[in-house]
């Protein structure tokens, strides 16, 4: 069979034909192609619009607040006098949640992936994979509710005394754990794909040398799939950073500079959500803060995505 790389429909259409076969020029075809190209170009326009809509008001914001005061200030209180626009407490809030989320999601997600790829019989895989896909589609507002009404009470009731004060009604820990559960399917399904792509020959070689299944999983399959696994985790992190509803519903709205489990925090996304839904007038500095924080969020997730694309490209093992 002719592979798609060597001969596409476009190539065939473009190929020079002898004059008697060229026929009349087909303007309709050209118009259709142009219309379709506009559809594709719309995605670039979206990106440009995102950047423009963020950068404009953010620049206005930075005329009042020095960028360094914004990035390294340790107090965030945009609506109380004296106003202060240090974004570090919001970043710390986001980091707290992401940290607890990853502590839950990495073992859960990778454990599930290794089990599915190396241990599970076919019938189990056929049941579990769709369930994970369904979990991926559950709206985040449900996870926020779950964190507030299930995880927080559970933590409060079973908090060991030696850890000190138990969690608040709103706390970073419950939100983090719920976000962890939210990104388990992402980490599990992408790393499962990476592990499934490891050639069987590598496993067989290790088995032939007498390695046990656990050893093959950990020492052969895991390293061979590492680039995919890391990309999965980076993607999970970027998803966790951008998650809004869970932090808004379960983590509270008090900016907190500490990396904390039990206390209430305010994450960057939650600040945007809560401020934008409140009554604020356009043109005020408070309104512009939404865009400054949004720009920071956009840059952070863009960087994560670039890292993940890079990692996959750089460390992708090409077998056969």
């Amino acid at each position: 069979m002719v592979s798609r790389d060597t001969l596409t429909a476009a190539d065939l259409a473009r190929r020079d034909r002898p004059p008697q076969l060229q026929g009349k020029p087909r303007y309709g075809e050209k118009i259709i192609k142009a219309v379709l190209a506009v559809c594709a170009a719309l995605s670039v326009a979206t990106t440009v619009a995102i950047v423009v809509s963020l950068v404009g008001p953010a620049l206005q914001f930075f005329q009042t607040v020095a960028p360094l005061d914004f990035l390294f200030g340790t107090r965030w209180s945009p609506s109380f006098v004296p106003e202060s626009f240090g974004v570090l407490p919001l970043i710390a809030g986001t980091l707290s949640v992401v940290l607890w989320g990853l502590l839950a999601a990495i073992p859960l997600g990778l454990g599930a992936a290794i089990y599915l790829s190396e241990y599970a019989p076919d019938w189990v895989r056929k049941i579990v994979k769709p369930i994970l896909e369904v979990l991926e589609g559950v709206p985040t507002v449900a996870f926020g509710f779950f964190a507030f009404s299930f995880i927080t009470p559970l933590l409060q009731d079973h908090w060991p005394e030696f850890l000190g004060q138990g969690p608040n009604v709103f706390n970073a820990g419950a939100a983090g754990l719920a976000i962890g559960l939210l990104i388990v399917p992402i980490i599990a399904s992408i790393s499962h794909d990476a592990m499934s792509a490891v050639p069987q020959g590598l496993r067989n070689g290790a088995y032939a040398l007498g390695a046990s299944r656990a050893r093959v999983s950990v020492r052969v399959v895991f390293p061979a799939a590492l680039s995919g696994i890391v990309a999965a985790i980076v993607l999970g992190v970027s998803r966790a950073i951008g998650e809004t509803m869970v932090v808004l519903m379960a983590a509270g709205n008090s900016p907190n500079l500490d990396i904390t489990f039990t206390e209430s925090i305010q994450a960057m996304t939650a600040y945007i959500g809560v401020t934008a839904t409140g009554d604020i007038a356009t043109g005020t500095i408070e309104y512009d803060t939404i865009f400054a924080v949004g720009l920071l969020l956009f840059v952070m997730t863009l960087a994560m995505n670039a890292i993940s694309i890079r990692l996959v490209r750089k460390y992708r093992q090409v077998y056969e």
Partner: protein
Amino acid sequence: MSTKTYNPRTRLATSGARAATEAHLGRRPTGERVSGNLFYAFLLLMISLSMAGLAALIIDAFVEGFPRLGLELFTEPTAPFPEDSGFLNAIVGSLFVIGGVIALVVPLGVGAAIYLEEYADRERWWNRLIELNIQNLAAVPSIVYGILGLAFIVRGPLSLGFVVAAGSITLALLVLPTVILAAREAIRAVPPSIRQASLAVGATQWETIRHQVLPASIPGIATGVILAVGRAIGETAPLLLVGAATFVTFVPEGFFDRYTVLPVQIFNYFARAQQEYIILAAAGIIVMLVMLLAMNSFAIWLRNRYEQRW
């Protein structure tokens, strides 16, 4: 290439080698056996915890929302008191918004996918830019799309105000990358021989796409669209910024009415922090989960029903 099916010869060789080694060495060292079993137990624990988490989420919503489960959730709009309130206005709002999303995303997403798969020359820098751009857009947090909607659609160039259409356009932009990626996958699954046969009998490129490629890839595209739209139904954060968060008690009647949607309504009830409203929010979550489950099952059924082997 499927890695799970290794050929009989390899299988025979590995099992033979394994048996010979095991017979020669006797049982595995105890340490190895114990750690192997522990590892297996750990994996089982992890996968069961993940499943238990999902189960707990659904059961918790059911338990909390049970007192309010009933048909009036679908027939009553928001009322001054929680006992009389339902989700009618939010459900209709969601349907309007989603209808708008589908109307926008299907032509745009499929058009972009056809261009990228059938026309675009990968060597050109602008086509590579479009591909990279779509990849990056898929990773942008949803609330950033909300900011875009607020600055460009509600205010700014389009200035639509806080209306249904603003919500539809914002969500359409959000799910467009997903739809494009899914539609490309579906189009790519149509084998090139079909195209070559069509071109060989004299069809133009567009005739080939229109009469061969598109009909063959419609089930795949439909599946992708349904899954993407399912994501849009559950999206809350971006809509908070483009008007759905306002307190609305009436049922929207057109695309230029003010509106709220199901997940935002759930959040609003939740945020009132009274017990009655929290129960109502839990009941709303169940309504939403049922809607999504129905849609996703339909998508999976569609995929299986029309799955075509070439």
